[in-house]
């Protein structure tokens, strides 16, 4: 079922089904096709606007590629089923929005602790609570980082367009597989429902990563060890006779619970963090525009990065030396790069569809002498080029 080991067959199938070319589609559909190209063959979810089109697309497309779609009774069960399926070797995902993302937090932490690769798409919508329900927002930045309890690392990527959603979903799967960890895709309701041109490439253009499997019996006996020194243990999948034991409790390298020895917890949780820290090259990604000579820097992410780029281009026409920094992997935040850029500019504007979340990350990496200001908007309507341009002029 999994693409791994059946690449030629799967490539033929994908080619037959999805001709390369430009298609007019919603962001949610782009996420879904990205997932299918990445090898996702299991989806479990629960309907919620503005993520439902991902479920609908997966329900329609997955059977064609021998993949499984299940609608569960709630979001808690959805991510639970995704973890279960991942332990059988299926690349697995779920998608939801704020209220469902809240319900998934406990099992997202379980996936971190048990090192289960999966992709969780959060199509951010306006909150708190039911909020404006169907309207887009960027208010889950820190929920993605700290929504589940305990001292945990997390990786989250955030696409800036329908086209980007296709590629970033693939990247999310590849990161999840390479680092044996859940990856959050922080999408948003605006892009999810925007229809725009998305180029579907030939499958050969797509780089596809697979989780490490145990090379021998010895490696299989330590599902939570670090035999290769990269912090990423090979994954002894269920059904292969390894007698793998998996628990969300603190466990030793062999998987067995030990909550009494402080050193066992310390070693495990530090390795989980180290696994992410030492493999930055696997996930770190950002975009820069005109940052070389910029005196003012706009920092933005997700949907807001688009009007931000428009505003920067217009300001450049007006002769303002302004640049743009767009973290594509938002967690862990690209702090080192932020620090370098922060040293070169005199003002930083952070534009986002919330009352100031990513700005708190930016603040950690820039000195006090840099003027730091948020360009924020809530209410379900995205920031416009004009609105951001006005703020750029204000600090020019």
């Amino acid at each position, binding site marked *: *079922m999994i693409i791994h080991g059946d690449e030629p*067959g799967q490539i*033929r*199938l994908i080619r*037959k*089904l999805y001709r390369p070319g430009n298609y007019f589609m919603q962001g949610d559909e782009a996420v879904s096709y990205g997932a299918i190209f990445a090898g996702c063959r*299991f989806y*479990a979810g629960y309907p919620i606007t503005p993520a439902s089109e991902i479920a609908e697309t997966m329900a329609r497309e997955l*059977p*064609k590629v*021998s*993949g*499984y779609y*299940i609608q*569960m*009774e*709630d979001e*808690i*069960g*959805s991510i*639970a*089923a*995704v*973890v*279960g*399926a*991942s*332990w*059988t*070797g*299926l690349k*697995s995902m779920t998608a939801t929005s704020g209220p469902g993302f809240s319900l998934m937090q*406990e*099992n997202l932490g*379980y996936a971190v602790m048990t090192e289960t690769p999966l992709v969780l798409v959060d199509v951010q919508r306006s909150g708190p609570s039911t909020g404006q329900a169907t309207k887009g927002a960027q208010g889950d930045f820190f929920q993605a980082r700290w929504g589940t309890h305990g001292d945990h690392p997390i990786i989250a990527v955030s696409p800036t367009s329908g086209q980007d959603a296709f590629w970033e979903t693939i990247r999310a799967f590849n990161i999840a597989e390479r680092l044996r960890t859940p990856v959050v895709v922080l999408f948003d309701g605006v892009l999810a429902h925007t229809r725009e041109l998305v180029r579907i490439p030939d499958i050969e253009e797509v780089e596809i990563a697979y989780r490490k499997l145990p090379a021998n019996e010895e490696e299989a006996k330590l599902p939570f060890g670090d035999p290769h020194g990269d912090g990423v243990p090979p994954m002894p999948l*269920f*059904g*292969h*006779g*390894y*007698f*793998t*034991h*998996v*628990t*969300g*409790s603190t466990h030793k390298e*062999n998987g*067995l*619970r030990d909550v009494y020895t402080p050193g066992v917890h310390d070693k495990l949780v530090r390795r989980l963090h180290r696994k992410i820290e030492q493999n930055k090259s696997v996930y770190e990604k950002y975009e820069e525009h005109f940052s070389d000579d910029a005196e003012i820097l706009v920092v933005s992410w997700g949907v807001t990065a688009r009007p931000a780029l428009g505003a920067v281009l217009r300001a450049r026409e007006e002769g303002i030396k302004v640049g743009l920094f767009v973290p594509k992997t938002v967690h862990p935040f690209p702090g080192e790069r932020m620090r370098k850029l922060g040293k070169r500019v005199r003002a930083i504007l952070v534009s986002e569809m919330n009352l100031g979340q990513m700005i708190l990350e930016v603040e950690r990496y820039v000195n006090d002498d840099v003027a730091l200001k948020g360009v924020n908007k809530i209410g379900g309507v995205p920031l416009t080029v004009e609105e951001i341009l006005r703020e750029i002029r204000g600090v020019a």
Partner: protein
Amino acid sequence: MAKEIYSKYPLIKYLRREALPTALCPGCGGGTVLNAFANAVDGLKIDPRDLVVVSGIGCSAWIASPYFLADTLHTTHGRAIAFATGVKVGLPDKKVVVISGDGDLAGIGGNHLIHAARRNVDITVILVNNFIYGMTGGQVAPTTPFGAITTTTPYRNIEHPLQISETVAAAGASYVARWTTAHVYQLIESIKKALTVKGFSLVEVISQCPVQFGRRNRMKEPAEMLRWFLRNSVPLAKAKKMKPEELEGKFVIGEFVNRERPEFTDELNKLIDEVQEHFGLKGE
């Protein structure tokens, strides 16, 4: 001492030795359930490599995970059946078994229990009903008998217990049976049937928690609890002829349903075949 006991236990080969001795209290019904499960697996000659055991959180969640030597997924509180659903879809040819408690599977996880039965996904659930949240210190559960004393109903329980087997049978399971830890042979036979039946199967085991339930309800000794089970057990056929008032405080035991219904993973794979046929993708 412990080592000697293990070496005498004929089914030790099914247990994960390095995890022993178990953390269960002396006299806990959990050991009986583990033994019954091992006997059923042995009786059916199931290769443990063809088993995946999933559990939630609680004392009863520990019965087979980590103690049973198979792939074991010890999940979050209440969610074992949902995790198991994903496992079963990925490994339709393996036997996927959930062993966990009443609070876990019928309280916080009740919704997953009902919907898995409705879907009729081929999972075997052994639900250990000790009428109490044992692990957290004996708080009232959705299964606690009316009037019982627990740490959070110190005067008396004013709620009525959920009838788990009846509910799951009504929800559409292929197989449902209820026994107590005092009916070990019947229990083993039912677990065997549950493991063999295609579709969702539930074996509810009324089990003793002398430490958190018995001791607060005038049954300090495990044996007293087993006698309580025996005194109050009513076979299903007899229960059908009794009035609801007469059944108050009784344990109806036996097989509630044993029927064939389309199974979820079968249907899912059939659907994939149909879709591929329809789009001319067969053999690609």
